[in-house]
């Protein structure tokens, strides 16, 4: 069923259809409406979820950890400073291998305080051990919220999964979204299978024990194995979802007109939509350009990204956040992915769109036009739409 809804509503609808046992959430702009919609569903009796309205995001994710260890299917949503407050607990959720699914309405981090979109919150959680997926539009946010559940809960993975959607650009704009039938989603996500649940009093367990130097390392290695299993599970879940939805989700990233491209752009989230328009404009003018839009950011599909970009002359990697003191995080990922190749494209790193700064089609066209003039990869940041 096609509906004109916001990204918020799309995520909330996915959550309603999944109907987790527990949702613990604290409101923050631009995520609040996800929480508000879900609270409405709970109070209207549309779902049997236990909604835990908490006093902070630290408590929200703590409640999620407790509920997941108890044996429940658990979801939450946050943004920016809220995620910053959650991060301590996010590492714990990942270390305990708890399959919590979280929508992250991407917003800048303070200071200066700002409520608009960039990816500094997602970057903050980069090394947390959570799987991170980026959506380009409300449709992808809806679809990946449903897929995330299966990826998180797969016994080979069992990790928190963050579904990123750009704050305001995706959360607050009304877009056409094809919703699946409730039963189809319920069947797809299936019954939740708890692992060693605390509420199974006949089989008592301790969650979150202390680990000394003799075991900490091995437990973290096992956690890395969960991350290493995620790409394979991601692909199989995509395949299955493509079948039930009729939409094409094939691969870790979308390669848009990339096959014969001489110049390419790599970008996360909604700006990929803008980039497609820029690609089409330049293609119409005869310039061979393309786009690589990662869906799966953590774990980073380095081998596949390397293969997809190997033939390109130069690549512009766009980061919507600083990684202060070094190059952008996505740039570092792409550079690492290309390093093993004998013949590598020239790379350039652009910082763009901080604090909700608009990035326009002409600006991206300009990036593509600049690429052929760059003669070697340099350890230097370039900027889109920044006043000198």
């Amino acid at each position, binding site marked *: 069923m096609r509906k004109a809804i916001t990204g918020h509503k799309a995520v909330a609808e996915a959550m309603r259809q999944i109907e987790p046992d527990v949702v613990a959430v604290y409101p923050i702009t631009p995520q609040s409406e996800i929480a508000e919609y879900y609270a409405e569903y709970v109070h209207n009796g549309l779902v049997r979820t236990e909604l835990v309205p908490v006093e902070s995001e630290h408590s929200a994710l703590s409640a999620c950890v407790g509920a997941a260890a108890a044996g429940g299917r658990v979801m939450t949503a946050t943004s920016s400073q809220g995620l910053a407050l959650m991060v301590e607990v996010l590492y714990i959720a990942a*270390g305990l291998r708890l399959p919590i699914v979280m929508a992250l309405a991407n917003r800048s981090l303070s200071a200066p305080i700002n409520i608009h979109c960039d990816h500094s919150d997602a970057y903050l959680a980069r090394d947390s051990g959570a799987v991170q997926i980026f959506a380009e539009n409300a449709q992808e946010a809806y679809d990946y919220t449903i897929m995330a559940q299966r990826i998180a809960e797969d016994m080979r993975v069992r990790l928190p999964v963050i579904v990123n959607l750009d704050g305001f650009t995706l959360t607050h704009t009304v877009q056409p979204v094809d919703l699946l039938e409730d039963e189809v989603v319920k069947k797809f996500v299936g019954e939740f299978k708890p692992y060693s649940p605390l509420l199974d009093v006949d089989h008592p367990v301790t969650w979150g024990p202390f680990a000394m130097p003799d075991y900490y390392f091995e437990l973290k290695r096992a956690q890395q194995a969960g991350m290493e299993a995620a790409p394979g599970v991601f692909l199989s879940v995509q395949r299955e979802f493509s079948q039930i939805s009729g939409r094409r989700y094939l691969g870790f990233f979308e390669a848009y007109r990339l096959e014969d491209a001489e110049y390419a752009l790599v970008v996360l989230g909604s700006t990929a939509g803008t980039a497609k328009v820029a690609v089409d404009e330049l293609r119409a003018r005869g310039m061979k350009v393309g786009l690589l839009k990662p869906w799966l950011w953590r774990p980073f599909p380095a081998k596949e990204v390397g293969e997809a970009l190997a033939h390109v002359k130069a690549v512009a990697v766009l980061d919507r956040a600083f990684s202060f003191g070094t190059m952008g995080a996505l740039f570092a990922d792409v550079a690492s992915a290309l390093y093993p190749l004998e013949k590598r494209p020239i790379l350039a790193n652009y910082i763009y769109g901080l604090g909700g700064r608009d990035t326009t089609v002409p600006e991206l066209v300009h990036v593509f036009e600049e690429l052929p003039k760059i003669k070697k990869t340099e350890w230097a940041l370039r900027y889109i739409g920044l006043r000198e």
Partner: protein
Amino acid sequence: MAGLKGWRELPLGGVVTGGTAKELQKTGGWRAERPIWHEEKCIQCLQCWLHCPDDSVLIKGGKVVGFDYEHCKGCGVCAAICPKDAIEMVPERGGECARP
């Protein structure tokens, strides 16, 4: 580190099955004071068993029979809660008695 398990053998998320840590971690060595049970004063109210944070009050047939000195950390909660002063805290000497 011979005898320790490899990473593939560990339970998901480091979850510990009930009762298994008891064999690995003999935490009684941390104790500075040792509880001594005076059976003649004990009325078997089980308050010590109920309050012990380390499950170190030994019970047999529903009655207190002594302490698990391999795990008792000497916190003294049992002595404090005992209504009949049937539990006495005695300093461990020179670390010698810290071993069970």
